[in-house]
């Protein structure tokens, strides 16, 4: 699993940011993980460490408010937790969430299968393929 984290945390995050990811099968998740791993491969270790810390914070911060970790929240509560981070008054928190969100979106929409699913069928043949 990219970022060496429990896959349940990452998958809960994916499902909240891209609801369609809940329908991915094992092969789909394998593709997602390959995309994320490739994306992070050449990134500095310090950045990966920050992302790991941020992911753990997402998992455990909700305990204070909801009495349970992120992975055990309802979809509505998960959305509320992430919206709080996205709108946080501290820019570093917003940027941290933005970074994680970017990785999730790359992992999901960076796959050719996801592109096809949303109707994106660009081809080098351009008008000739239309």
């Amino acid at each position: 699993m990219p970022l060496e984290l429990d896959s349940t945390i990452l998958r809960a995050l994916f499902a909240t940011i891209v609801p369609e990811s809940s329908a991915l099968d094992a092969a789909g998740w394998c593709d997602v993980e390959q995309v994320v791993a490739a994306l992070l491969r050449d990134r500095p270790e310090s950045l990966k460490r920050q992302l790991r810390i941020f992911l753990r914070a997402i998992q455990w911060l909700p305990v204070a408010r909801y009495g349970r970790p992120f992975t055990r929240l309802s979809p509505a509560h998960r959305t509320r937790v992430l919206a709080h981070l996205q709108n946080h008054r501290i820019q570093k928190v917003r940027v941290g969430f933005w970074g994680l969100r970017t990785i999730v979106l790359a992992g999901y929409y960076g796959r050719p299968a996801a592109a096809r699913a949303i109707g994106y069928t660009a081809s080098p043949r351009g008008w000739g393929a239309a």
Partner: protein
Amino acid sequence: MNHAAYDIVIVGSGAGGGTVAQELSPLCRQGLRIAVLEKGPRLRDDEFTGRELEMAGALYEDGGGFLTADGAMTIAFGSAYGGSTVVYTGTSMLPLERVIRRWNVPDLTHADLDCRARKFMAGNHAHLIEDDLINENNKLFVAGCRKLNYDVRQFPVNIKGCRGSGLCNLGCPNQAKQGTDRVQLPNAERNGVEVVTRCQVLTVGQRTLSARVSARPADGKGEPSTWEPGDYQIDARIIVLCAGAVNTPALMLRSGLGATLPRLGSGFTTHPAMIMLAEHARPITNFIGHPKSYYLDQFAETGHFVLETCMYFPFITAKSLAGFGEPHSAFMRAFPRLQMILVLAGDKADAHNRVSIDRAGKPVVEYRFQPEAIHGLVRGAIASARIFFAAGAVRVHMPVASHTTIEAADAPRLDQIAAAAEFKPGKVPVSAAHPQGGCGMGSHARDSVTDSRGRVHGFPWLFVADASLFPDSLELNPYVTIMALADRVAQRIREEAPALLGS
């Protein structure tokens, strides 16, 4: 340590480096040895697949994910044979007289730049594309603008044999875009200039450079370098830095030149941009056809923004939408019905925004959004929404609003819905692709880094010829102006070559 020696070394092969290489290449016939050192790879024609993440990883610095120091903005620039000219859309714009006058660089006139710019527009086949090749994404922009009585204009673009793949920003798979990789660099190589790829220049010393040549990664794209992997010391009697507005200042700072050049790295601007999207009720041609055919610049001075048509790929589109969850997914599912507009904000050189380096010598861009730029992004977003609705869109994604989906019925309230207060760095997706400044032209070392023809103050053998020369924002797509400035630098080197090479 390997050694090499040349009369002239050019660092970088984009709009600046490619132009200098072409314009100096006749000197090869007089026996001069000229090399271009390019950090990125040279791809074979069949390696341009148009696959988003694959091509971004192969052609962009940091795979297109280079971030400002605070992480709030992505700056995209190319790293390949041809530099950013491989990944731009080919929009070819002449420099504006009012901007060049405002730059106030002694001995730099708009007339001179304009004349040189026109030469390169012709040489790179810039022209207005035919109406039957323009897709609905662009035509709807025109229709919306005309309905609002906006003064919409068509971009000249430098394409030849375009098949409308729409993949310009991932490197044209049909070799239609006439960047330096297709025009200037091949011309230079035919005349005897040597181009060495995968060669990163680490430092510049007294008429010498240290560089590192990388091996081709096992799963990477592109040809291996013509030089063996390893460290090199390269002697050169003239050095021309064209590594772009992020890497040229960083290279000079790594080399210790900041000690005598207090302005080195300062004055960085980049046209921060937001991608606006709208959904139509029916599918439109959007990802087929040239993506960027029209623009609107009538609000550049009063509103600090320019609008351009655009069309991006699934991941970049997803990243450019604010928010997450179902509202975000709903726009993504509507991909074949999406219309897109790029809002470019006018930023200005100031005391804060600059290029520096970290402890490892890597470039760091310190960037703070100026109030005028935020105003430009918000006003540009509102103008885009008006254009979308005027063109018949049913809903618009508004990144600078508390609720980011706006239905057509809410169009009359756009001024209340979109607000600068909603512009929170790190929340609103902002990216940029026009890095400029950092080695600005001027008269003295106290107010600039180079003179008006690119010579670095205090270093007769060292020149800069890229977008880092801009003393302030250009306010439009920059490659033609970069070429015009690089042409001035090359002319000066040709004129002074006997003295510079003899000493």
